[in-house]
């Protein structure tokens, strides 16, 4: 049992924290304010080769694992970049893994180097308004045509679609009535986001304004055969491979945000003098911050355990879900506690805590809600009857 980062992992963490110092909290506040994608940050991560961290070296990557990716994403979030920074690179760093694992040689050569090099920008289109967390019931249809498929349907919450020219798309290729299992008959595509056929409409949301999320209305989009990743009908299975590592990454990001918030708050509490002493001298201020720190570090151990198991090729569903749940809840508490520590100033944008609080609600609820995680743990660990 070894609970510490390896020297290489520590080096990644330190290097990223340093790299991110180029982008001040004011940079992120400005982008949150203007709703403009952080292109400068994105480019800097492309140029540093960081997008290819978990990509095989044959395609321009560095072939590292999910643990290293989690360490990097956490450091990005922790630097003050929060979800604005993490989400801007999440898809190239992680979400194109289905292409790595299930794409054919030709697809990998065609797709991956352009993603690592930042030439192609990708969004990940799975969630639908009429299916929610029940992914197997998505309504988007890909109907077989000569040489490919004709796609029609709606997607929701699709992040970075405003700045993407490609999309990973999940659609039903065999109608639900014709499959034996609901998980069959879905297929995954990596294809052009052709704006003549796909209307992209921005969703006005609570935070992370720099990284857009959107409704997609897909109307008679032709997707060539060679854009299908993996076998027809196997799309859901392919996505399942990514569920646990995605939970790990999002959880690591949440913890990064929580740390950023409480260390900011602790600094403020050391310096702010009221009633003739630093407010941080009061246990009513100290204890909640200390408790949040303890909770975050405990959650982080679970997250890193899940990451380590995943990289060893072992089952990690329980750990990844537990880590994501704890990270989401504790990081939210950390940001809220940080806000209360600053008093009225916690509510002012220039202190950066309210932005972190608005952003930390994303990893708390997405990509899977705390409810669904508790459903999973109740069923898988406690062997209680499935509730839905």
């Amino acid at each position: 049992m070894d609970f510490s980062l390896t020297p290489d992992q520590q080096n990644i963490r330190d290097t990223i924290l340093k790299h991110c110092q180029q982008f001040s909290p004011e940079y992120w506040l400005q982008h949150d304010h203007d709703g403009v994608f952080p292109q400068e940050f994105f480019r800097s991560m492309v140029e540093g080769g960081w997008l290819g961290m978990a990509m095989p070296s044959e395609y321009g990557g560095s072939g590292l694992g999910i643990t290293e990716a989690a360490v990097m994403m956490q450091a990005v979030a922790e630097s003050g970049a929060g979800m604005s920074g993490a989400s801007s690179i999440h898809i190239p760093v992680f979400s194109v893994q289905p292409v790595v694992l299930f794409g054919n040689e030709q697809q990998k050569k065609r797709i991956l180097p352009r993603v690592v090099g930042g030439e192609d920008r990708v969004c990940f289109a799975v969630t639908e308004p009429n299916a929610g967390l029940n992914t197997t019931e998505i309504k988007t249809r890909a109907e077989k045509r000569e040489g490919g498929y004709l796609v029609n349907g709606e997607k929701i919450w699709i992040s970075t679609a405003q700045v993407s020219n490609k999309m990973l798309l999940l659609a039903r290729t065999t109608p639900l009535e014709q499959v034996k299992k609901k998980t069959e008959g879905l297929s995954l595509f990596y294809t052009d986001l052709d704006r003549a056929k796909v209307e992209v409409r921005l969703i006005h949301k609570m935070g992370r304004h720099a990284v857009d999320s959107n409704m997609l209305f897909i109307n008679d989009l032709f997707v060539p055969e060679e854009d299908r990743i993996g076998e027809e009908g196997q799309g859901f299975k392919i996505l399942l491979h990514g569920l646990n590592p995605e939970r790990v990454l999002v959880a690591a990001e949440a913890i990064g945000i929580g740390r950023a918030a409480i260390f900011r708050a602790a600094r403020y509490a050391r310096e702010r003098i009221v009633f003739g002493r630093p407010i941080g001298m009061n246990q009513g201020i100290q204890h909640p911050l200390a408790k949040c720190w303890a909770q975050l570090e405990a959650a982080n151990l679970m997250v890193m355990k899940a990451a380590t198991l995943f990289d060893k090729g072992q089952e990690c569903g329980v750990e990844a879900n537990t880590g994501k749940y704890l990270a989401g809840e504790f990081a939210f508490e950390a940001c809220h506690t940080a806000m209360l520590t600053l008093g009225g100033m916690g509510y002012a944008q220039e202190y950066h805590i309210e932005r972190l609080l608005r952003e930390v609600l994303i990893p708390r609820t997405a990509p899977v809600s705390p409810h669904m995680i508790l459903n999973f743990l109740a069923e898988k660990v406690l062997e209680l009857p499935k509730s839905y």
Partner: protein
Amino acid sequence: MKVLVSVKRVVDYNVRIQVKSDGSGVVTDGVKFSMNPFDEIAMEEAVRLREKGKVTEIVAVTIGGAKNEETLRSALAFGADRAIHIKEEGEVQPLTAAKAFAAVLKKEGAQLFLCGKQAIDDDANQTGQMVASLLDIAQATFASKVEVDGSKAQITREIDAGLETLEVDLPAVVSVDLRLNEPRYLKLPDIMKAKKKPIETIGLGDVGVAVEAGTKTVKVAPPPARAKGVMVKTVDELVSALKAKGLV
């Protein structure tokens, strides 16, 4: 031309330094270490000289314990071709370090020794100068610009009166100042490549140097806490308060 760059592992400049309660030194347990920032500038300069075609090989050298390997890996990620680790777990004072670097410099036949003007841990600002003396070669300290031309180098230094430009014959020692350059941010592919570059590990004895302690640290104390200020209402009150303290 070959360049030797010395890199020291020091407590990271972002760390809030704490003094041990017995006054024997500063707390280093659980504290983040990184490459001395001035040495990063020296590394960066070496790499830029190579990019300009003035330098063909960059060798990084460090003295210290096993953990110093991390510092060398950073130097290799910056662009050093290979590294030398002079392993010594105990305290190494500037003269010992200078003797070791001088021996390595001679053995390697490097034309330029680039080092930080000082290390931010002890701020001794001695090592580079002593290397030059020991080898009886030219030195230019606190460089804010370095130009290499054949067998000579032109070094600009920031001095009180302005800028001073020196010309030195090579081989020479150049210690670098803050404004020489802005070190690059490390790239992941370079960090990966650095793992495969060679590090030669030797002892001080291998370069014919014994650990010497010319000075002894008697006591380390934190700076005195800032005394509580007094609020004054008028400029007159301020002036008389300063006069009373004999400050004006």
